[in-house]
């Protein structure tokens, strides 16, 4: 159950970025989580709701983008996305010699509401 720990970190850095942008409220938080992190979406959403209480993210919606695990083929060197640990190259059918990625754990996008008086006149 590392979801709560991850959610706390997510709320903390999302809050930092939102304050830097002068936001009054965060509407949407998008994160990218690799397959190897073994994060359960349902638990992550629950944890995010708990961690976000009384913060700028309190009413924010959490979007989770999944990053796949990729294999580098031992025969042709091609990099392919693995599905269900199927480590055979789709082109030359050799086993993957090395696994790549899948360990992503990033905040990638925020949608925030800023007070209208902060709008830059040029943008109006």
């Amino acid at each position: 159950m590392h979801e709560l720990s991850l959610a706390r970190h997510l709320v903390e850095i999302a809050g930092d970025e939102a304050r830097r942008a002068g936001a009054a409220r965060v509407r949407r938080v998008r994160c990218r989580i690799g397959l190897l992190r073994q994060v359960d979406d349902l638990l992550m959403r629950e944890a995010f709701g708990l961690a976000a209480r009384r913060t700028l993210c309190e009413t924010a919606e959490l979007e989770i983008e999944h990053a796949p695990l990729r294999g580098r083929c031992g025969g042709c060197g091609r990099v392919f996305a693995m599905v269900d640990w199927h480590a055979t190259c789709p082109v030359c059918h050799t086993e993957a010699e090395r696994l790549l990625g899948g360990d992503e754990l990033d905040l990638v996008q925020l949608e925030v509401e800023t007070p209208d008086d902060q709008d830059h006149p040029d943008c109006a």
Partner: protein
Amino acid sequence: MIRTIPIVRKLLARNEHAASENRARFGALGVTCVNVLGGAGCGKTALLEAVLPRLTAERRVAVLEGDLATTRDAERIAALGVPTAQLLTDGGCHLTATHVQHALERVPLDALDLLIIENVGNPICPANFDLGEHARLAVLSVAEGEDKPVKYPLLFKDAQAVAISKCDLLPHLRYDLRRTLADIRRLCPDAAIFTTAAPSGAGVEPLAEWLRRLSAAASAPHNISRSPATASR
């Protein structure tokens, strides 16, 4: 006004910052730090009990014992005459770099060659948290089943060494060791792999030699760093 802000920030940046501080401190003092990870009951403590007596003549070693509750494991290590500090997480399922930072006050860090951190018994969560170690030793017992590298891949992906423990049980199990080894190889092609049995001491000497070499490299300060794959996490 509603604005969309693209960002790329690592979720665990705060932990990684604390981990780099730990690593810098170890580096400055010429201490090698090894993080030992594995599921509950996989034999981490028994393996340390077997390997530590082979190290203490030549290396100054201390152990940080991470546990959810009780000081039993720490007592087992302390009984070997090895300086030990207990880290109780009170139910927390993993250690963080900050836990370690606080515990460092309780070991004689400037008089050490090797600091071993035994993480909380859990094959999933601890693997997410860099503690500032130079190397990870993943422990997997044959009693857990041969499919575990695939079920707990992150445990192995950043490991510099893997110990397959309780191999003395193999004659009693239906266990395809070759399959486990192939899965581990794919996850961490460069890791050293040891097949061990703590009660008989089988395979323990090669593990001790790996730890000796690792800590010898560090005694020339700043000589070791983590592998690029791990450092970028």
